[in-house]
């Protein structure tokens, strides 16, 4: 395991120290060492928070910043933050207007958020939630509530953060974020496994020359293991999973997000995006904006995810709003 670290048991704390120093213009520490907050949060707005396991950089702390999340709860690697951390994030973000907790559908996060919401209520803080479930490959469409949240969460934060920044009230922020995720579908293809620093060996396998379609951000098994394909065929496979599920149709305006899983060279993401774009154009689907890069990763996994979100006027305005965080800077 060729990794840069000290004691793997404290890697998250050390990472946070470096993160807070490097981005002291955007974020700052809070009393809970596992909660990061945005600097200079505008007064009187609805709070927007998220949280999740570490190892997915820029997610989750990387989306703490201007017009994005006000506070973020940080978990161990690939493990949900504590209920306490979600609670403290909510408290930090609350300005009396309530807090929107926009997180991903994983059992640990569900439990911890559920408890945090209960505890927040006792403490007089209203927290409402949106749980992202954009990963088409993780359950059939009639069980959408079982689907995992993946890179589509970035678009949910972008939209929810912008809505709050524009002065939306809690229900409006929740509605916008919910619409964002309801309009969003994702799928991933994994090419190599990843290794948790404290474990020291990969805990799943992807054989050389094969790829796993529909893999999750923690290596959760996908729909199918098949032979490694050309970028053109991979793109087709991803588009064929994502497009019919929503379904995205001719005339739709969309946002496309292609994220690397960590170790895939960024140049390859552009090759993949080029193929995806050709397929969408053929279908008459119009790309309003594309994000290509490492937006939601899984340590040193190779592979990529495709996320598509259908826009309406409100979503377009919110997506186009500037933002400033480590993971997403937009003029």
């Amino acid at each position: 395991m060729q990794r840069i670290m000290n004691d793997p048991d404290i890697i998250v704390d050390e990472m946070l120290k470096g993160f807070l120093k490097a981005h002291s213009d955007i974020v700052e520490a809070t009393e809970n060492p596992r909660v990061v907050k945005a600097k200079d949060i505008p007064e009187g707005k609805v709070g927007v928070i998220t949280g999740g396991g570490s190892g997915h950089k820029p997610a989750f702390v990387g989306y703490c910043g201007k017009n994005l999340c006000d506070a973020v709860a940080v978990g161990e690697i690939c493990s949900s933050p504590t209920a306490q951390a979600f609670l403290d994030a909510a408290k930090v973000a609350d300005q009396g207007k309530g807090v929107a907790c926009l997180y991903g559908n994983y059992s640990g996060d569900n439990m911890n958020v559920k408890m945090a919401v209960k505890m927040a209520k006792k403490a007089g803080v209203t927290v409402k939630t949106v749980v992202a479930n954009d990963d088409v490959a993780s359950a059939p469409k009639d069980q959408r509530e079982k689907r995992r949240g993946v890179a589509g969460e970035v678009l949910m934060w972008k939209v929810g953060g912008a809505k709050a920044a524009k002065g939306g009230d809690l229900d409006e922020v929740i509605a916008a974020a919910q619409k964002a995720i309801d309009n969003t579908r994702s799928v991933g293809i994994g090419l190599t496994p990843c290794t948790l620093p404290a474990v020291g060996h990969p805990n799943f396998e992807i054989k050389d020359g094969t790829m796993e379609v529909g893999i999750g951000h923690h290596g959760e098994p996908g729909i199918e293991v098949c032979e490694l394909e050309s970028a053109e065929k991979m793109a087709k496979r991803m588009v064929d999973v994502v497009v019919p599920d929503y379904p995205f149709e001719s005339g739709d305006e969309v946002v496309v997000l292609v994220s690397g899983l960590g170790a895939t060279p960024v140049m390859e993401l552009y090759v993949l995006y080029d193929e995806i774009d050709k397929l969408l154009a053929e279908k008459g689907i119009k790309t309003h904006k594309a994000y290509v890069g490492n937006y939601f990763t899984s340590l040193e996994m190779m592979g990529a995810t495709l996320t598509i979100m259908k826009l309406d006027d409100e979503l377009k305005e919110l997506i186009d709003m500037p933002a400033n965080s480590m993971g997403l800077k937009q003029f």
Partner: protein
Amino acid sequence: MGTFKNADGKPVLLKMVKGIQDNKAYLGEVDGLIGDGDHGMNMNKGFSLFEDRFKDKEFGFAEGLNELGTILFSEIGGSMGPIYGNILMGMADAGEDFDEIGVADLAAMLENGLKELQDIVEAQVGDKTLVDTLSPAVDVLKAAGEAGKDYKEALEEMKAAAAQGRDSTKDMVAKFGRSSRLGERSRGVLDAGATSCCIILTAMADGIMELL
């Protein structure tokens, strides 16, 4: 019949801690087969944190459960924090006013732990989770309490029920947690949470027997 003093419960807690510590690697292996392999690590971290902070302090059984539960809950994320945090704090809530803890009292504590757990998880018996261990253990202990059985006998029955519950998960298909993604492929191996729950209940029973 018989009871133990709530105030004397510290060794029981330490025995539970040791049970987890001794099985850290084993729990990791079990979780590795159909989960992500971190169950031993997650549990060990929380239980060892408790040991570090409390081994030199005085505390009783319910109090210890509450402190351990609180640490899991506020310092261990993932699923284990809320799951065992809720169980242990639920037990503590139900037991904090007892001076002496008899079979029926212990059953009531465990039952409240299970109830608190079911507040945050939907899993039922048969879903291949730690509920498959905890639920029959509660049933057996409750029945023993109602029947006025001997404490040791009741605890042995509870241990057997927990072990049987754990083993029953082997043939199940996971419905919740990471392994549920595997569907049919999750059949054939034990559930990690059911395994750790059996370890904890067994250590607790053994610890109580030494106090009787």
